[in-house]
């Protein structure tokens, strides 16, 4: 008896400790980043860092605006391209497809989600970049192909498995009674999807989009390989861009002799973290609001 009680309390302690440990990591990272950014914040103002377009590290001039815009635009393109396609595929798999086909596609989607991002990057360089080059020429804006659009496309491909599989799971959790009750009114499958399935799963769809966004926003390797990495505000889809993660990955450890560079890169990391955190929080608040309205 004594031994069993001891084991129980030991297990409880370990479970609590793991929880504290996991959550503490987030705080430690946030605090570290904040501490490390203090030198640059002491030198320049926050608004200047965020809004200046001039990036001349040697002169101590750090304007993050092009990077922030680059990140936002690449992510936005990725989300615009992927969300409709992913939702429609998830709807097809959930509401139209045969169970066996659904199982097979699920497997493929899981494999896609597990492919290392550097491989997506390589495929991007081989396939997407030349395609964008041809498209740019056809549309009258000559480009190397290493551009915002290439980055957005490769990101869209990368986040698709995440959004599709989460959305599919969400659709499958809707009880059978929802489909039976609505179809029995003599409505079509599409009307059921539009009025019942999508509305009932609003919650989960937002969660799927947030997960996709977080993945896209912080994705480094694949984007870095195709986006061009020029620290200028991109003026068209065919211009190169330079997202924050790429900035950090390309420069950290190499340009450390330049004063404040280290601190500037930490600032970039902090922005990434704050935006992803803020987006998740915002989505959470939206969910709470929907919940209070009571439709889901």
């Amino acid at each position, binding site marked *: 008896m004594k031994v069993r009680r001891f084991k129980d309390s030991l297990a409880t302690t370990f479970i609590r400790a793991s929880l504290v440990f996991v959550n503490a990591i987030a705080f430690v990272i946030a605090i570290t980043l904040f501490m490390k950014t203090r030198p640059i914040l002491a030198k320049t103002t926050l608004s200047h860092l965020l809004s200046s377009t001039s990036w001349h590290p040697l002169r101590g001039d750090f304007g993050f605006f092009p990077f922030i815009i680059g990140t936002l635009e690449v992510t936005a393109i990725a989300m615009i391209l992927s969300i409709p396609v992913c939702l429609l595929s998830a709807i097809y798999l959930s509401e139209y497809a045969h169970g*066996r086909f659904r199982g097979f596609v699920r497997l493929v989607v899981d494999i896609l989600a597990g492919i290392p991002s550097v491989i997506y990057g390589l495929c991007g360089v081989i396939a997407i970049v030349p395609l964008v080059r041809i498209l740019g020429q056809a549309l009258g804006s000559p480009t190397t192909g290493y551009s915002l659009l290439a980055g957005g496309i490769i990101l869209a491909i990368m986040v698709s498995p995440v959004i599709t599989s989460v959305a599919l799971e969400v659709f499958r959790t809707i009880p059978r009674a929802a489909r039976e009750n609505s179809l029995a009114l003599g409505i079509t499958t599409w009307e059921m999807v539009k009025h019942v399935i999508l509305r009932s799963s609003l919650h989960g769809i937002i969660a799927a989009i947030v997960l996709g966004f977080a993945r896209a926003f912080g994705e480094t390797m694949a984007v870095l390989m195709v986006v061009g990495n020029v620290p200028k505000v991109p003026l068209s889809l065919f211009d190169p861009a330079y997202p924050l993660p790429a900035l950090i990955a390309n420069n950290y450890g190499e340009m450390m002799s330049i004063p404040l560079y280290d601190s500037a890169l930490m600032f970039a990391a902090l922005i990434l973290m704050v935006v992803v955190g803020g987006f998740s929080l915002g989505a959470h608040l939206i969910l709470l609001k929907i919940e209070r309205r*009571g439709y889901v």
Partner: protein
Amino acid sequence: MPHISLNNLSISYGNHKVLHEVSVDIPDSQITVIIGPSGCGKTTLLKSLNRLLDLNDDVSVKGNVLIDGVNTYDPKADVLSLRKKLGFLSQRPYPLPMSIYDNIAFGPKVHRLTQEQIVQQIRDLEGRSFQVPERKNGAMDVLVESYLRLAGLWDEVKDRLRTPASRLSIGQQQRLALARALAVEPEAILADEPTSALDPLSAQLIEKQFKFLRNNYTIVVVTHILRQARRIADYVIFLYLGELVEHGPAESFFKSPKDERTRAYISGEIS
């Protein structure tokens, strides 16, 4: 000719045979109760009528189901209008993710009823003419009220029509489902153990509503509660292990069952 009749209906899921050659006519304007132990094919039989079985993978159906003389399983059959003729209540009600009002208005709106059709529908239902309120959606308001009254729910919800239907109690949700089903003007109501998730009082209300509706609708109820069958049935269909054992008017079915298995089931020897 009966509205609903089954001819040699056999249904299997993959290799598993669930119903064997069931043939029966379901009488109009009566409550027909399908009884039998769990897993004997009651729900499958019910859902075969409006082709909700299509939601399952690997179902194969032989024989036919005639609804007003049209074979439901004819590849050319218009499944949507067949389904519209047969209202359906599931075991657990599912309020559509919208307000109480919109749950009722949903069917008529999706089927794009015109103002005149709505007015006509209310006239047919109430059997009298009435004044359409001048305001926007006036006719729809009357329609929603009529069906909520018909399902015995109006007095409980009239002050909160715009609140989400999911806030209703589960018993109220089932009556809402009934009102929603009635609002597309079905000829029959199919109910799959409609009271099994409900408390006894709500269950009683549903039974009461069925008895009230039976003059105008053909009602088919699946239940495994024998006492419920005795309370509401006009006609009984007894299934045992996928086979139609016996069917007939409730009185003779319960008083003088012909088959040994029916007798055993009614007396509680098998369940």
